[in-house]
């Protein structure tokens, strides 16, 4: 004796947020039922395990049918099959495109290719995120990437419009797409302490200031690539370290400004040239795609780690970077103010964001 067929269809599609989350998280129906039982929904509603199983199956089926539409969220609004209130639609989309920071950290900057997808079981094992969920998230990244890759105009806005995502989520996706496109290295051991949100913040900075779109949002080209011209110009900053006078001058200006204001003054003074060289070298090399990939690792190795070993606080860091940036403008022979500002603005906020344990 068994229930052979069991369906429930509402004119307004009924979707339980909790079950949806379980489905997204890759729970099997049976596991989901267990979780729900533990959650106490049974006592609440005088239901039995059978009822719960039936409901869960039903919802899972609904979600599976909806999934096709969720791949093109714009369709969800004008499809006829399911009558879903707009707020529900938004919830479905938002949760479908939500991702685990742990997971995204693993694939951030990797090529969104079949090869990467094959390795997802490792990622799943490592992060504890179920494989099913990993695949969904990965596919989401890839789908968004494919769509916006071809589009003109501001990246975040494109994502928001095509995938109807809320602002924050759209920004995160922009970061993911940006990282994937530029293949930034994020997986090195030294970078592991950085969270996705750190990178997302940095990506936002880069997108807003270093891409072509940052200069002119109406530009033909898009937000995904860094502004080549700007990268070219960055080479000119090298003068700050190659010209010894300029370097000394810069150092003394910074030291003057910081004297007595920071507890790590001595370390700073001793290390100034190394730090400055580090930052300027990163700038100068960015024209090479390979070095773009190493941007974050370079920042950490060349700047963050030395400071950390000298026990700088973030306040120290902030002070230093502020004066370091500003002082350059006072240098007589330094002409590249615009490029410097554009460069250091991003560097400063990135470093400040990245400077933690």
């Amino acid at each position, binding site marked *: 004796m*068994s*229930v*052979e067929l069991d369906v429930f269809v509402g*004119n307004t599609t009924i979707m339980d947020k909790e079950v949806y989350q379980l489905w997204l998280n890759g729970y099997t129906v049976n596991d989901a039922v267990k979780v729900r039982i533990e959650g106490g929904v049974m006592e609440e509603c*005088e239901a039995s395990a059978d*009822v719960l199983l039936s409901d869960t199956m039903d919802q899972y089926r609904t979600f599976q049918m909806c999934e096709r539409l969720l791949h093109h969220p714009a369709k969800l609004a004008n499809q*006829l*099959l399911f009558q879903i209130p*707009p707020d529900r639609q938004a919830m479905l989309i938002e949760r479908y495109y939500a991702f685990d920071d742990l997971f995204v950290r693993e694939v951030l900057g990797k090529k969104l290719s079949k090869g990467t997808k094959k390795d997802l079981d490792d990622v799943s094992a490592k992060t504890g995120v179920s494989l099913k969920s990993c695949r969904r998230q990965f596919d989401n990244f890839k789908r968004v990437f494919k769509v916006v890759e071809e589009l003109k105009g501001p990246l975040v806005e494109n994502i928001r419009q095509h995938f109807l995502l809320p602002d924050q989520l759209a920004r995160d996706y922009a970061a993911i797409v940006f990282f994937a496109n530029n293949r930034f290295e994020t997986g090195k051991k030294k970078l592991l302490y950085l969270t996705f949100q750190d990178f997302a913040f940095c990506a936002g900075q880069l997108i807003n200031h270093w891409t072509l779109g940052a200069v002119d949002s109406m530009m033909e080209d898009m937000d995904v690539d860094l502004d080549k011209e700007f990268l070219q110009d960055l080479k000119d900053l090298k003068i700050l370290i190659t010209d010894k006078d300029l370097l000394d001058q810069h150092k003394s200006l910074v030291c003057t400004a910081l004297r007595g204001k920071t507890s790590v003054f001595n370390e700073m003074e001793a290390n100034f040239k190394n730090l400055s060289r580090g930052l300027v070298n990163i700038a100068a090399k960015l024209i090479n795609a390979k070095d773009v990939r190493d941007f974050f690792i370079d920042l950490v190795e060349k700047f963050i780690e030395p400071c950390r070993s000298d026990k700088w606080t973030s306040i120290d860091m902030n002070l230093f970077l502020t004066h370091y940036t500003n002082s350059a403008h006072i240098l007589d022979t330094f002409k590249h103010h615009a490029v410097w500002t554009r460069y250091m603005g991003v560097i400063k906020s990135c470093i400040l964001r990245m400077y933690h344990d």
Partner: protein
Amino acid sequence: MPGKLKAKIVAGRHLPVMDRASDLTDAFVEVKFGNTTYKTDVYPKSLNPQWNSEWFKFEVDDEDLQDEPLQITVLDHDTYSANDAIGKVYIDIDPLLCSEAATVISGWLPIYDTIHGIRGEINVLVKVDLFNDLNRFRQSSCGVKFFCTTSIPRCYRAIMVHGFVEELVVNEDPEYQWIDRIRTPRASNEARQRLIFLMSGELQRKIGLKVLEMGGNAVVGYLQCFDLEGESGLVVRAIGTACTLEKISTLPSTATHQSNSSPSKDMKEPVFGEEVPGIPLSSGPPTPLRAQTFSSFSPSKSYSRQSSSSDTELSLTPKTGMGSGGSAGKEAGPLKALLRQQTQSALEQREYPFFTLTSFPSGFLLHVGGVVSARSVKLLDRIHNPALGNTRSYKLLDWNSFTADEPETRDAWWEEIRQEIKSHAKALGCHAVVGYSESTSICEEVCILSASGTAAILSSRFMQDGPLDTEHRLSRQPLVFSTGSERVEGDMGSSASLGFEEVVPPGCGFCHIPYDELNIPFPAQLTYCYSCRRSKVPDVLFTTIDLPADANITGKGCLIQARLCRTKKKAQGEGNATAISNLLPFLEYELHTQLMNKLKLRGMNALFGLRIQISVGETMLLGLASATGVYLTALPGPGGIQIAGKTPSDITYEQHISNMQKKINDTIAKNKDLYEINPPEVVEEIIGSPIPEPRQRSRLFRSQSESSDEVSELDLSHGKKDAFVLEIDDTDAVEDIHALLTDSPTPQGFYSCNTEIMPGIQNWTSAIQMFTSVRVFRLNNANLTNQGLNKIFSDLCENLLKSLYFKLRSMVPCCLCHLNFTVAIPEDELIQVAVTAVAMSFDKEQILENGKQSGEKTLTKAITENDEQLQFNLELNPESSHANPLSSPKGLSEVGSHPSARAPSVDYSSFADRCSSWIEQLRLKAHTIRRGSVKTTSSMEKASPLPEGRSRSLRSNRSYSGTSVAVVKMTPLSFIPGAKIIKYLGIINMFFIRETTSLREEGGVSGFLHSFIAEVFAMVRAHVAALGGNAVVSYSMKECVFMENPNKNQAQCLINVSGDAVIFVRESELEAASVQPQSTTHTSNGGEGT
């Protein structure tokens, strides 16, 4: 004459990829109507083609317009091979043919393929230019409005209710044609879909013609059904109630005026006055008419059935009188009196006084007698068609080789059943049957036809002519015999002559017995009405209608279900049919017992919306009775349930019994609490039935006694009132008790009912959720006992309900309304249960701010449209159609004579073995009664008008939340809470087939059906939206036939849905306007006192 149909194909979207190479589609569209086909250009390489075609014009007869759907086919152009079909859209253009409905169809409609489901959408524009047709002999009936709604539609007022219309058409089922062996499943499915479209169109047109003939302009309570009889064909049949409706445009001050004046007029007018309008019907013509009717069905058959039922029931004078009507008239009937009665019945046969409505304009329904039902088991040998002449282009089956000697037709089958229903109604002293419906259950070649309704007495006000007229005239005759003999009879006579325009108290009048208490057709316990104390009421009342809006009830109602499963042996042909007909009475009897027990267990005394479904399978019969129980204030409180053991042997046994008794008593107490049933204490005034001669009563008893009856008879004497005793020695009874106690209560915050709205709840919010749920259960072990099966079946239903409650928990507090269960046995060992219902939230605080609201007066009419209901243009036509049934002893003797007269004509192959009616069951059980009363007294009740402004307070209580435009609401109810229906756009009647050969890939049977039902909903919504509507009311899924073959990875499903497309607006600015007329009409209503 002709009309011009115009269609324009605008665009497509979300088309499937048809060309793998390019991932695109080269789509074009064929537009077909009748035999004319147009094509659009090919729109190359796009999934979102913009055809923007010219207007395709079809010049056609309006007859075709009514019958044919517009057929739109989307194809993928292929240069080298045949074009691939993407899918189709059938558009029913009927709504465009009526000036008051939709004017244009415009919107995105899903493109449907029977194999792939929905494949994108197409945007079309369809219009119709109709030229006026003055031809009297036309075959079309354009302009007749159809409503599925079983009450007078919200924005109309009934000028006249003409009565019952029915029609059926038959055809060969394409699925069973020889050609099906060589064509693709898709072609076969499409042939079927198209055929059914055609047949429903034709059916509707024919019914429309009948309506026009009767002088009506609309069909209300239109119920269309399909019988898939397999090899023997396909029957599409429909019933409805013809009406003359008038759209309510402005505040109808005239109505108020008229209603005020009518009572006096009605009272004054002499009874016989009504003969004037009735002339053409009542005098000359009836005889020829009758002859016609009769020619189409075999009299002998009715006999065989009668004889089978008559051994259990003896005393139903009218029934026998009726049933034998035509045939006896022809064959025998030496007695003059008999002859006369036959003539009468023949006259009445001219038409059926049936009404498919379940709720009525105020004052229309006077008394309710009780449920009448009839069933008949038939063998589906062949379809022989209809005397009604089928002139359509598709060909009928020709089976004459077989049937030459037996003009059996589906029409005759139904005719027979309807006759029986009519006679049952008459037995209850009623001249009409309301809440009438018909259904079938088919298994292989056996078909059970069922009909049921509620015997009632209606006010003649909305019926100027027709059967009631005749009947009234005739029914007066018996009065002549009886007057003077007894006082009560005399009373009746006078009440009849006054007409029933005499005032019936609104809150309880319908409960008063319509039959003569001295000649109750079954033993009953009568008491004086607990509300008005003037008329007699039964102790229990069963009906198939909705609770009248003005009925006085105590507490809340609840869904009550009786479920039963009976095994039967596998058999073929006649043997099978006989076995089934033998089982049916027991099935009904037990269902009835269960209903009674459960009703009492809930401390209630009346059932509304009773629907009994009997489903037949190869090895079992399923019975499911659903109804909404309430406590009618006018009726006496139900007695408790007592358990008795036949063999009070040992102590443990006694203990056991007393434990059970305690449990039951506890449950009753709990239920009373739960449903807030605390009737005002009334001085116990046991009137009992004042039937003077106990002799007669006991005679009735014995005549059909079965062992169990003795028991009930006993209790009657020993318990107080109608204490109900269950014998637990009896295994059945043990089971009953189990069933009683295992029904789990609805969870906190939930109520459920199968009527339109929940008695006792009014303040609905606008949150509604319509749903369909289907379950199929497989019985794996073949050797199950009846008890085992019962339990499984009962659990299946209970679990389904529990699941529904769980699903809808977010809507609490809420009520599941119109819970409509359908059971089927799709194949051996499978039980299918489908439920469609609507969940509606309500505000917890039941605010009855209006001081005039009398204590227990609960208004069930939650909705707005009260006003329209009351604004009837009253027909001042004071005929009284009191049927005074049978009564006299003479009647009884006639009964006696009948069975013998019939016996010889018993006939065979039709297996007309008719399961006996409810009445019969009722008589088996001593304690089940229902009725109304003929004896209504004067106009005193005027003094208890409806509280004015109650609706106003209801309205203000309601909260309205905004809706978004694109949403299409669906509900099985006739209204939308918190909103006002401003326009009916036409009937939605759609039939879909879905088939798959990749069942596993589509998620198994559940996945397959889930998406199909979702698709059906989507298509209904899209068509409603294209008509310009934003809701479907009176939605129902009438058919859901599911077949699977998991081994072959295949499944097929057929779904038929219907409803009324409407435009509603949220009540808000309407509010101010509507309050005004409401109070006036209320006043008038009070004055009228109906």
